[in-house]
């Protein structure tokens, strides 16, 4: 009953000062909305990266020279085609692996030109990585064996160079050399600011001839069985180390890549949430301030309530409820605004945003907690007011 009265009084007090209530709530609204949006963006980015790494294919093992860790400069690869053949014997067949040599090159068709990521690869690439074709076919074994000048274009490259024309069978110019288009990849889209449709695949051997090298940059292996993937990596690294004494090789799995990326994005999300948390804190200070004003304004009311029998606790609870009501109303509004903003960001920008129930619950819980934490000092001050002094205040 006393509790019900406290709720009624709190609501009444908030209604009586609508503008002030709204402005005070604004701090919490912005704070909570910021937490929801920023966590949604952080989570969305993480999910997108994860789905991309998973989307590459399953049971993948990437083998590169040097050490794989952030901050290490890439090593010039000592690997050649003979290493590829040796490793294919270790992993049990050429169709279990692909190799790549990559370079940035300009491709031209007529007057249209485009800077692309040129990849020299084996014909086995589509069996190792998941990659669908929209038109034509992929490279063949004989294309690779004879270093034929044929190319498979990313969807975006095909669009920009050929427009509406079907590019299959047409000629294009790669770094000054004529190539014939044999296929076009299905659209992958942009992600995290990187256009994944600007790749051009040509036979590894043709790429080596084009770039004047015999080097192979990296190997990708599809393990037949996920549980043996680590063992297989060790065998491949051992084989390569034997062939190139004194040079280090690394084999990394998708899980390891995900682990590193997840860590980076986790830190990013944490930093974003902390920044949003600071604005929530500032909102809380505003609540505290307004509650102190409210207590001062209603000193006589407090004195009267005490005179007619309100215990200190009754008064404290009344003001605490007012503060919590203020912040949770702000919290709910902020949640709505945050969810709306996150959906808008996801719909209108390339930045992914995923609303997670935990961030919404957390933001709401935190806003209620902010009310308690920042309301408790003013509420206790109200509860402790001396009724004699309170009644005398004009």
């Amino acid at each position, binding site marked *: 009953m006393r509790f019900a009265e406290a709720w009624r009084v709190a609501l009444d007090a908030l209604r009586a000062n609508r503008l002030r209530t709204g402005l005070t709530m604004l701090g919490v609204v912005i704070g909570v909305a910021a937490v929801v949006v920023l966590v949604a963006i952080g989570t969305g980015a993480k999910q997108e990266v994860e789905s991309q790494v998973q989307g590459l294919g399953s049971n993948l093992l990437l083998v590169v020279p040097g050490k794989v860790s952030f901050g290490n400069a890439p090593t010039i690869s000592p690997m050649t085609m003979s290493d590829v053949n040796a490793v294919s014997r270790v992993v049990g067949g050429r169709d279990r692996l692909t190799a790549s040599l990559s370079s940035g090159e300009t491709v031209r068709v007529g007057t249209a030109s485009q800077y692309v990521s040129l990849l020299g690869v084996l014909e086995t690439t589509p069996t190792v990585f998941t990659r669908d074709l929209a038109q034509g076919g992929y490279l063949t074994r004989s294309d690779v064996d004879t270093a034929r000048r044929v190319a498979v274009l990313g969807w975006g490259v095909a669009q920009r160079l050929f427009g509406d024309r079907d590019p299959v069978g047409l000629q294009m110019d790669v770094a000054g050399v004529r190539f014939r288009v044999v296929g076009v990849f299905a659209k992958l889209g942009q992600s995290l600011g990187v256009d994944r449709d600007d790749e051009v695949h040509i036979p590894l051997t043709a790429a080596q001839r084009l770039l004047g090298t015999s080097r192979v940059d990296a190997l990708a292996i599809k393990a037949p069985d996920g549980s043996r993937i680590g063992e297989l990596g060790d065998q491949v690294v051992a084989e390569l180390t034997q062939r190139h004494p004194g040079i280090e090789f690394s084999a990394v799995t998708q899980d390891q890549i995900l682990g590193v990326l997840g860590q980076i994005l986790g830190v990013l999300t944490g930093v974003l949430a902390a920044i949003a948390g600071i604005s929530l804190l500032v909102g809380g200070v505003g609540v505290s301030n307004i509650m102190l004003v409210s207590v001062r304004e209603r000193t006589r009311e407090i004195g009267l309530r005490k005179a007619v029998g309100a215990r*200190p606790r009754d008064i404290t609870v009344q003001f605490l409820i007012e503060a919590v009501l203020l912040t949770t109303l702000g919290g709910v509004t902020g949640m709505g605004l945050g969810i709306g903003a996150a959906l808008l960001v996801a719909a209108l920008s390339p930045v992914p945003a995923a609303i997670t129930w935990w961030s919404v619950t957390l933001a709401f819980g935190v806003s209620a907690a902010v009310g308690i934490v920042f309301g408790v000092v003013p509420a206790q001050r109200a509860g402790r007011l001396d009724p004699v002094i309170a009644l005398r205040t004009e």
Partner: protein
Amino acid sequence: MTAAVEAHEVTRTYQLDGLAVPALRGVSLTVPAGDYAAIVGPSGSGKSTLMHLLGGLDRPTTGTLLLAGRDVAGLGPADLAALRNRTIGFVFQAFHLLPRTSAVDNVALPLVYAGLRAGERRRRASDVLDRVGLGHRLKHRPNQLSGGEQQRVAIARALVTSPSLLLADEPTGNLDSATGAEVLALLEELNRESGVAVVLVTHDHEVAARARRQIRMRDGRIVAGGDPS
């Protein structure tokens, strides 16, 4: 029968910037049940301090104070609040009604802290408002009522818990003389009919003259009309 309030050699000293300022220098006063007394005296004589003590809003520095037979020295703020709620009704010069709150809800306020249900609170509050002649003004807010009506609402609020003592601090101070006389007549009637002890503090000698006894104060002491010793 227990006296409504009993004070024995009560003193009250305030600390102002580290300076001890005595407001009451030893006061003994018994207000028996059903008494009707007026406390008079110049400003600074300790009238208000005494009233706050009698009403359990404050505790004496030394001496013994019994409210409805209970020694306030042993009571914490919460227990004292509960005791005020049950045994004492206050009427203030400035009415002290809650704005934006109807007459009936203003009157029912002490019952909130007595722990009564909303229905019962309304019923009792309307009964008491009826009794002070405001049965037709239940839903009116203070700003829709005249000064005299506001003070009647305040008196109803003081009576709603059926206290044994009603303390009125300059109850006619904000009213014109005709309205003031009506309010006094109401207090007298309530004292006569329900037996609630009434103690009022006033500057006004005409008001004081209507009380059954007058307690004169000067410099923190009772100089006339105190307990027969």
